[in-house]
């Protein structure tokens, strides 16, 4: 037995296993801030990443452009047909905006959860081992990015900021199967046109016009859909209803598109229902994103409660 322990290599191996396990345990701690050596390394690598990324994007764009050229004609036809519709929508939107503004001034000063300052940034890389769905962006603490902020593309919400360094930050995509990734969401009522169709077909007039709230908890990899849980069971949901962020979770602004309902089924205990949400943004082809820095101050409910008690 003593000979067994005298084996230098074996001891080295055992020590490194112990170090490894303790390091993993240390870094798995919840809401751990990056230490300065880590930030330094991330920033340094991000500089090289941004330098390298530009020519790489250029090359990949050339391939993409060739592919696009093939579909241009069909796409053009489709877009032309949509254009008239779009003009009408724009006019409506303008009208609503003016009306909204007026009503707001009448109401007085109300904190608007919808407003946010976008921090535009470029994606400079993605975590190569796909166990963790992280992308890195080229804006960091110095530009005002903070952990847990929403990250958005033109197509909709894609994730939240996981950790920040001084000049770069890591974004966790919605497709990460991480249950801590909870987002407060709301389901918009069905568009009026659709309800009419519904009424014609099955005379079902239980459509409610209120917003329905739920929580996004996790991602189903097989279906490629987000799980929207904690919806009251007596609400009738239809496929295709849009789901937006509600802004009630703290840091996220209100009204960012997440996706639309694919499928509804009762939750595991039958008390609530659960919906599969097809995300509107594509998680694979992300180029430019913006981080949503909400104007309304975020308040930690626990801290706020503690303060109230103190008073």
């Amino acid at each position, binding site marked *: 037995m003593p000979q067994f322990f005298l084996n230098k290599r074996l001891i080295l191996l055992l020590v490194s296993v112990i170090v490894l396990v303790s390091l993993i345990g240390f870094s798995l701690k919840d809401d751990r801030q*990056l230490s300065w050596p880590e930030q330094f390394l991330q920033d340094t690598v991000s500089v090289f990443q941004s330098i390298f990324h530009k020519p790489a994007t250029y090359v990949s764009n050339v391939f993409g452009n060739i592919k696009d050229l093939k579909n241009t004609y069909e796409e053009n036809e489709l877009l032309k047909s949509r254009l008239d519709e779009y003009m009408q929508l724009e006019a409506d939107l303008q009208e609503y905006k003016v009306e909204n503004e007026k009503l707001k001034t009448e109401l007085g000063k109300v904190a608007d959860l919808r407003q946010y300052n976008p921090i535009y940034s470029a994606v400079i890389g993605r975590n190569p081992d796909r*166990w963790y769905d992280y992308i890195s962006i080229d804006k960091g603490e110095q530009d005002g990015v903070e952990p847990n902020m929403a990250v958005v593309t033109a197509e909709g919400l894609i994730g939240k900021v996981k950790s920040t360094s001084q000049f770069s930050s890591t974004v966790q995509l919605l497709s990460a199967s991480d249950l801590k990734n909870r987002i407060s969401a709301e389901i918009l009522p069905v568009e009026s046109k659709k309800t009419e169709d519904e009424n014609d077909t099955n005379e079902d007039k239980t459509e409610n016009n209120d917003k329905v709230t739920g929580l996004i908890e996790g991602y189903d990899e097989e279906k490629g859909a987000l799980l929207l849980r904690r919806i009251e069971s007596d609400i009738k949901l239809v496929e295709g209803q849009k789901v937006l962020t509600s802004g009630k979770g703290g840091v996220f602004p209100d009204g960012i598109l997440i996706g639309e309902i694919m499928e509804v089924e009762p939750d595991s205990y039958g008390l609530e229902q659960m919906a599969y949400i097809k995300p509107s943004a594509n998680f694979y*082809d*992300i180029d430019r994103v913006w981080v949503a820095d909400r104007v309304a101050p975020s308040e930690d409910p626990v801290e706020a409660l503690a303060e109230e008690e103190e008073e």
Partner: protein
Amino acid sequence: MRRFILPFLVLFAFISESSFAHLVHFPFLGEDYLYIPRFVLIFVIFITVYLNRTQGMLFGLIFGLLQDVVYVEVIGIYLFAYGFLAYLISKAMKVLHGQIYIVIFLSTLAVAVLEFYVYGINYVIGTTKMSLYQFTTQRLLTTLGLNLVVALLFIFPLKSFLTKLKIAESED
């Protein structure tokens, strides 16, 4: 001057991993299949085989730590993996001959071992719920294929570069 070329090349491989993951999509494979670039590991193995063991393990340790800190943000997953694999490969090379197809085979084997190891750790700490069957069909085989192709493409230029470097170092 020659001293800085090798670290720079490995860094290039390291960064190209993330750009590869971000930009390259093979349309014929669809979104279900994942192909993970392991360029740094392949490079480290070539260094171990064609240059020397110490440098191979050193690069393995440094870039394992970098991979942990920059990409994964969980320190410890890759930290010892690259260095340890380089050590094992050097042991194996003492028995086997340094022919090209043997080196290719060994690097593919190392990629497979690394994939299994990382899958195991992630399964234990609960970041993934992927079953072993899914892992082998959707991740392992495609990853091995990709890295085999990359190793085949790069072994000839890297071999000649590293042997030149070795001769230059022995002259110093």
